């Protein structure tokens, strides 16, 4: 040919164009689906497995007990996928069985084998926060003032009973009782995985009393401080001085704190730098999260359930364009906790990064 160089180049470009212009199916593992479909379908199997007819989410990891956290997660997912029947059943059960305190907070644990079912009336603020978040989403989805007021009441009660001032500004205690200065040898003690950042973000402005925005800010700075020393947070953190592993708890990044990267990735905002810590840590373990002994600086064991692996996918997705792995696209429920985290991760994918799930969204 006369002009070999240009003609070759254009020919190559043209070939590429031919391939992409072919009116074939989009490159989808499952054609015709949107990211939400993964959530909706998985929720159906989830509720079949973990939700009783009367609206109780069963934690089969812990002797089929239930707790406010599980009710909050269940209601949140139901509100998100639009399953109003299930939502109302869970709400009714929660109000009947757990809202037995004088305030609008939920007793944290319910045991079918105990009598009465609730032995400890203390609350867990992650459960309260999740229930408030679920109610807020439900009030929007179904345009319900009643749900909204219930959400506000919980937030107000949290502000009254579980939010205290500290050298790091206002902090969210894990419960109304037992974590303040004086109640712990190194109190106040917080659990940063109870600071559900995407919930705080969406609840901002709902209650006059509840300092959602400040909690986000303070929580993030605490994580930044930990990032400077140990990297990942322990499940329980003492704020008596510089943030450090709380004395009465294992100094571990464990089953609690695994939710921190989930919430950071779900959060609408720049959390990439914090997330790098997790990705870096897991990269040495084939991207599988692990329980990590912060004090010993050693990995204890891998968290290889689907729910944890999907969090790892989610973090990688926010930090780049890593797609949801094939083996994490089919929900294979094992037990309550990782199964729940799995669906939460799917929601985060669907709400924030559908492109990591389907090629067209």
């Amino acid at each position, binding site marked *: 040919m006369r*002009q070999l160089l240009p003609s*070759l180049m254009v020919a190559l470009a*043209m070939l590429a164009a031919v391939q992409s*212009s*072919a*009116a074939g199916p989009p490159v989808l593992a499952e054609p015709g689906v949107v990211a939400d479909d993964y959530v909706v*379908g998985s929720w159906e199997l989830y509720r079949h*497995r973990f939700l009783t007819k009367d609206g109780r989410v069963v934690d089969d990891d812990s002797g089929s007990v239930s707790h406010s956290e599980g009710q909050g997660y269940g209601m949140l997912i139901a509100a998100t996928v639009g399953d109003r029947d299930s939502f109302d059943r869970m709400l009714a059960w929660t109000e009947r069985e757990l809202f037995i305190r004088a305030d609008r907070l939920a007793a944290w644990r319910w045991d079918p084998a105990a009598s009465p079912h609730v032995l400890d009336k203390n609350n867990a603020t992650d459960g309260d926060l999740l229930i408030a978040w679920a109610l807020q989403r439900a009030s929007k989805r179904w345009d319900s003032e009643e749900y909204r007021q219930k959400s506000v009441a919980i937030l107000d009660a949290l502000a009254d009973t579980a939010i205290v001032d500290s050298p790091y500004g206002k902090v969210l205690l894990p419960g109304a009782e037992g974590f303040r200065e004086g109640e712990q040898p190194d109190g106040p003690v917080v659990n940063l995985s109870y600071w559900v950042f995407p919930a705080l973000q969406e609840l901002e402005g709902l209650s006059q009393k509840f300092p959602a925005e400040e909690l986000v800010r303070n929580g993030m700075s605490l994580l930044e401080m930990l990032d400077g020393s140990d990297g990942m947070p322990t499940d329980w953190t003492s704020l008596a001085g510089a943030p450090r592993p709380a004395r009465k708890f294992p100094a571990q990044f464990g089953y609690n704190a695994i939710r921190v990267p989930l919430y950071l990735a779900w959060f609408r905002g720049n959390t990439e730098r914090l997330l790098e810590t997790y990705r870096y840590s897991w990269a040495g373990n084939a991207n599988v999260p692990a329980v990590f002994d912060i004090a010993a600086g050693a990995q204890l064991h891998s968290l290889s359930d689907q729910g944890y692996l999907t969090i790892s996918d989610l973090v990688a997705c926010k930090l780049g364009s890593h797609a949801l792995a094939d083996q994490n696209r089919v929900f*294979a429920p094992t037990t309550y906790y990782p199964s729940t985290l799995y669906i939460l991760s799917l929601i985060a994918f669907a709400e924030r990064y559908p492109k990591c799930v389907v090629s067209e969204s």
Partner: protein
Amino acid sequence: MRSQRIVILSSSVALGVTLANANPVQAPGWTPLITDSVIAGEQLSPATSQSGGLTTVGVPVWAPAVADSAPAGIQAPSFPASGEAQSAPAPSPADDWNRMADAVSTGYVPSFGPSSDNAADVSTVAAAAGGAGAQPQAGDPNGANPFVDQVVSQPAPALSGSTANPFQLQAAPEAQPSPPVSTSTQPFDLGSAETAPAQTPANADAQQGPDLRALRYYASQRNLVRVGAEIRRLKALYPTWQVPDDLFSPVGGVEEQVLWNLYAVGNYGEIRRRIATMQAANPQWRPSSDLLSKLGLGETRGRIIAASNAGSWSQVVSYAATSKDLLVCANMDSLWRVAEALVKTSKLAEAFDLYRYILSTCADPHERLATFQKASLLLPSKGMDALLPFAASVDEQTSFASIRFDQLRGRMGAVASGEEQAEIGEDELTQFARFIDGSKSAADATLFGWYLYRLEYFEDSAAWFKAASQVSKDPKPLEGYILSLRNLDQADKAQEIAFKDRNKSPEIAKIYIEIVAEQLTEEDRDGKTKPLTAEQLKQYEEAVDDIESPLGAQAIGWHYIDAKELATAQEWFDKSVKWEPTEGGVVGQAVVAARYKRMADLQRIKSTYQDEFPALKNFKVWKAYSKANYNKKSSKRTKKVAAKPKKSFLAKLFDS
């Protein structure tokens, strides 16, 4: 004349020159002579297709009524001034293009527009399909199998007394707007391929409330994402509907849930091991028949995947033959693999039947499209013609009509890129051309252009490229158009367009540099180069400076050497080497030094570059520059008669 190889200078080419001359400064968007005398659907007056006294065939392209005035199989492509093209000043496609379509050369001149007896039908279809897609001559509208000698495949009534179908739950969701898609729940019967699948009309029985069969089927398969998609669909139809609680029935008890979990992730081997273990512990226990049958199907699916991945096609066919229930819409991947295996084992009739089964039975639009696409890569074209009528909607018809040519596109692409030599049959090209006429696909027209360009039918490739660039802002067809003109020895026009559009793509800028470089450095038989105007030269110098083209700078350098302006020549060679040391640039510097008799400079250039550029070794320091020293490598470009010595270096740069 410089043109030796392209013997026929077509009237269309001559016309192109005429057009360019008549309107030297073209507005972007190709608006030569005609402005608004031609619009889509209007018949072109023959008068407008006469220009410069050249005989052209003015084929009205949008008027089926005059189809018989077209020369057989040869018509110009014409894109109506619509859509994207309208944003540019209205082009005069028909006019221009029809002129291109005179009786030159290939016979593959773009043949847009109705030219055959079914032209009227074509235009009807195109209109119905939103202007796209001339319908290729389709086979039997009943979808008869073209690979069966005796056509017995009349659509059969619903088969009765057939084996119970475990997939009856799986049905075309009622909302599918797909007339030919039946609600057949019959698996594809590999054993009796000559029997057409049942094509019962869509079950129009009024349903009370949502039809949950598909939902329950997907749930039974643990296909959760499909469960989600189906719920989404049902909720859109029935906003107050709630998903039933018993979607995942507790059949099999607690033990079996574990097995279903394994089933969900496809770990069939582990299920078998667990079943064995559980039965050893409790001989009374047995898994549900539901699980066992799905497990069996899953295992067969796995075997089919493994065998087809390994290319063991006859094995694929035999697995499929022993697992009747596998061949249903829910196992689309298996259907595709089996169909491919049938083709690969020369069972074309059966393969066709399987594709037909999918298109007449399965509802998922993406899968249907993919099916047609896969078939298009495997079945001979008569098979594709026979499948076309199974499009379920006008949209799908349009897509099918396009996909049908995928295989041809691939072959044309291979020819165009030089991977393959074989030319393609005229019938196919004619059909494709007719299709493009309807679809107005710039990508297809461009592909046609490159195909013809590779075969050196430059006047025809120019026509296709021009059509493509009328409907697309993509610079690629424009590049093709310029390159075609260049090969038609319309360097002036090519140069003019390339200069005007050089900012549209780096490639065009490069082509521009090359065209002018060639003009500056190539001699004709009498040893003359074709002079640039002062304006052209100035433009060129600016463009070369703009993109810092070493090649362009060299060409300018040689020009100034010829003009005996050594100082200016030196500036340009110095720039060329500064931007990128190349043999041409360095030799240019050497020549200037030699002319100036600056032997020290010459020696320095030689010692710096002669390892890199061996041509310098032959450069005799003590001699004045002489052609003979350089003319050791003749140009690849056979069209050019005599090349200046320096041209051999340029040619090398062009060609390497």
